[in-house]
C-alpha cells in the first residue's frame, strides 16, 4: 500500500486553478503566515544554542543568552578541542551501538514476525501472545536492573547499551501486519512448490518485498539507539563507555566532567591559574557537537520516517 503521507511531500494539484482543496487567497495567506511562525518556533531554540556556542563567554554572562551576540568567539570550540579524544570516542560508541543494534534488532524481530504472520502456522496465536504480553506488562525497573547487573554482569559493556532495546513488541506487530497484508500468500506457496525452504522464502521473497516496513522500523530503531542516554545512565559508570548523548548530559550537569580527563586543561591551569572555564558557551558548544549529525541526516531520513509512522498508523 502506497503511503498516503508520501503524497503530501510532492503533492501537486493537477490543475492549480480548479483544485477543490484550495482555500481562498486571504485564508491561504493566513495559513502561510501561521506556518512561518510555527516553523520558527521549532527552529529558534536550536538557533539560540548555536549562536550562544559561538559567543564570547564574558558578554554572555553579562548580557544573557542572545540571538545577537555582542562578541563572537570560538573559545568554546577551542576548549572542546582539548577534549577531542573523549568526544570522538563517545561518537564512535554511539555510531557502533546504533549500527549493530539496529541491524541485530531488525533481523531478530523480522525472524519472529515472519512465522507469526503465516496464517497456516497454527501456533501463531500463542507466539503472538508471548510477544504482545511484553507490551502489556513489564516487570518494572528494579528487577530489570538487577537482571542486567547481578545476573548478567553487563555493567560498563557495550552489550548493555544494545541488548535492552533489541526486541520491541510493537515493532514486531507492525512487521507482522505488513508481512500478512503485503506479501501475497500465493507467492509463498508457489515458491514452496518450487522447492524453496522457509529460510529461503524468508530471505529471498519476504524480506525483499518488505523493504518499506524494514526501512521505517529500522529508522525508528536507529533513533532509539542514537538518542539513548537512559541505558548509559543506568549501567555505565566508567569514562570509557560513555556515548555522545550521555556525555552531553554530563556536560550539562557538571562541566568539570568535560575537563576531568583532559590533560590540556590541567596544562592550561598550570601556566595560567586564573584561567576561567568558558562554562556557559562550552555547554552550548557541546550541545551543538551532539546535535550535529542528526540535523544533517534528518532531511534525508525524514521522508522514510514519516512513511514509517503511517505504516504503523494504518497498520500496513
Amino acid at each position, binding site marked *: 500500500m502506497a503511503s498516503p*503521507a508520501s503524497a*503530501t511531500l510532492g503533492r501537486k494539484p493537477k490543475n492549480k486553478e480548479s483544485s*477543490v*482543496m*484550495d*482555500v481562498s487567497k486571504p485564508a*491561504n495567506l493566513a*495559513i*502561510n503566515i501561521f*506556518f512561518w511562525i*510555527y516553523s520558527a518556533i*521549532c*527552529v529558534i*531554540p536550536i538557533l*539560540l544554542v548555536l549562536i550562544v556556542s559561538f559567543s564570547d563567554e564574558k558578554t554572555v*554572562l553579562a548580557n*544573557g*543568552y*542572545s540571538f545577537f551576540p555582542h562578541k563572537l568567539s570560538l573559545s568554546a570550540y577551542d576548549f572542546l578541542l582539548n577534549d577531542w579524544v573523549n568526544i570522538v570516542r563517545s561518537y564512535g560508541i554511539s555510531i557502533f551501538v546504533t549500527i549493530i543494534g539496529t541491524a541485530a534488532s531488525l533481523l531478530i524481530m523480522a525472524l*519472529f514476525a515472519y*512465522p507469526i504472520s*503465516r*496464517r*497456516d502456522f497454527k*501456533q501463531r496465536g500463542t*507466539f503472538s*501472545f508471548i*510477544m*504482545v504480553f511484553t*507490551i*502489556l*506488562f513489564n*516487570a*518494572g*525497573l*528494579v*528487577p*530489570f536492573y*538487577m*537482571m542486567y547487573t547481578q545476573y*548478567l554482569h553487563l555493567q560498563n559493556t557495550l552489550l548493555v547499551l544494545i541488548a535492552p532495546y*533489541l526486541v520491541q513488541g510493537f515493532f514486531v506487530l507492525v512487521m507482522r501486519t505488513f508481512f500478512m*497484508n503485503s506479501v501475497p*500468500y500465493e507467492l509463498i506457496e508457489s515458491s514452496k512448490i518450487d522447492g524453496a525452504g522457509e*529460510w529461503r522464502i524468508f530471505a529471498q521473497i519476504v524480506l525483499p518485498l518488505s523493504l518499506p516496513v524494514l526501512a521505517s522500523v529500522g529508522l525508528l530503531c536507529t533513533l532509539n539507539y542514537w*538518542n539513548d*542516554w537512559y541505558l548509559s545512565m543506568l549501567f555505565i559508570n566508567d569514562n570509557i563507555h560513555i556515548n555522545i*548523548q*550521555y556525555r*552531553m*548530559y554530563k556536560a*550539562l550537569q557538571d562541566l568539570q566532567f568535560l575537563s576531568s580527563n583532559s590533560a590540556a586543561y590541567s596544562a592550561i591551569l598550570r601556566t595560567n591559574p586564573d584561567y576561567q572555564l568558558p562554562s*556557559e558557551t562550552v555547554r552550548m558548544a557541546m*550541545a551543538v557537537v*551532539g*546535535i550535529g549529525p542528526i540535523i544533517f541526516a*534528518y532531511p534525508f531520513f*525524514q521522508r522514510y520516517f514519516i512513511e514509517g*509512522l503511517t505504516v504503523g*498508523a494504518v497498520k500496513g
Partner: protein
Amino acid sequence: MEQPVKTARLALPAAGQKQNVGYWRKYGAFYLMMTPALIFLLINNYLPMIGSVLAFKNVNYQSGVFNSPWVGWKNFEFLFSTSDAWNITKNTIIYNVVFIVLNLIFGVALALLFNSMRNPRLAKFHQTMMFLPYFLSWVIVTYLVYGFLNPEIGLLNKIILPWFGIDNAIDWYSDPKYWPFILPIVNTWKGIGYYAVFYLAAIIGIDKEYYEAATIDGASKWNQIRTITLPLLRPIVIVLTLLQVGRIFYSDFGLFYQVTRNAGALYDTTLVIDTYVYQGLIVTGDFGMSSAAGLYQAVVGFVVVFVSNLIIRKISKEDALF
C-alpha cells in the same frame, strides 16, 4: 485482504497420524527463526517478572532476588503511608491527561491547516521544520529549555520577561509552580509533529469526491471541515487517543527527569512514578519501596491497557493491539 486465509486453510495437511512428522518438517524452521527473539524475551522480559516478588521482600542488593527476606505487604504500606504515592500518581495521571488533550487539539488543528496549504514546496519545507523536534533527544531538548530558563542568563529572565516589565528574575529550576505549564509546552513542542503527521495521513486518505460534492452544494471550507473531515477523522482520533490512554500510568522518563534537570525542589509538581522508581533504585537505594511502586505501576498500567484495548476492539477491531 481475507483471501489468503482461505488459501491457507486449503494448504493445511489433512488431520491424522502423519501430521506430527509433517508438522516438524514443515514448521521446524519457524521455531528456529523465533529462537533468538524467544531467548531474548525470556531474559529481558519474562525472567525479570519473577523479580516482581521483590516488592514483597526487604531487598538487599547483595543477597539478590532469592535470598532477601520476605516482608509481605510492608513495602506497599510504607509507600502508601507517605504522601509520595498520592503525589506521584496524581502527577502522572494529570500530566498524561493534559498531554493527550493537547496532542489531540493541536495535532488535528495543525493537520487541517497543513492540508490547506497550496504550495507543495512550502508544505514540504514546513513539514520538515514541524517534525524536527521529534528527532531530537531529550538531552538536547534539555539544553534548549535551559537556554530559555537559565535563572541568571536565560533568554526568558534576561530578555523576554523584561519586555513585559517583569524585572526580577524567576528561579525556574527551584519553583515548582511553573512546571505544570513548562512541561506540557515542551512535550507538545517536541511531539506534536508526530501526531500531526498521523492525522494528516488520514485526512489525505479521504476521498476528494466528498469535497467536490460539498463544493457544488455550496458548502464553505469551514462547513466541509465540520461535516466531512472531522467525522471521517474520528476513528483514527479515537484509536490514537486510546493508545495514549493505555499508557496513562507511564511517563516519558526523559521529559520528567532530563528537562527538569531532576531538581529536587521541583518534585511537588514534577515527580512521576517512573522518576520516583528510578530515584528509589539509584539514588536513595530504597529497593523495596522502589519495587513496590514499580509493581503498582505495572499492575494498574496493565489493567488500563487491557480496558482501553477492549474499547478499541469495540470501535475498530483492526486497530486493537490484541
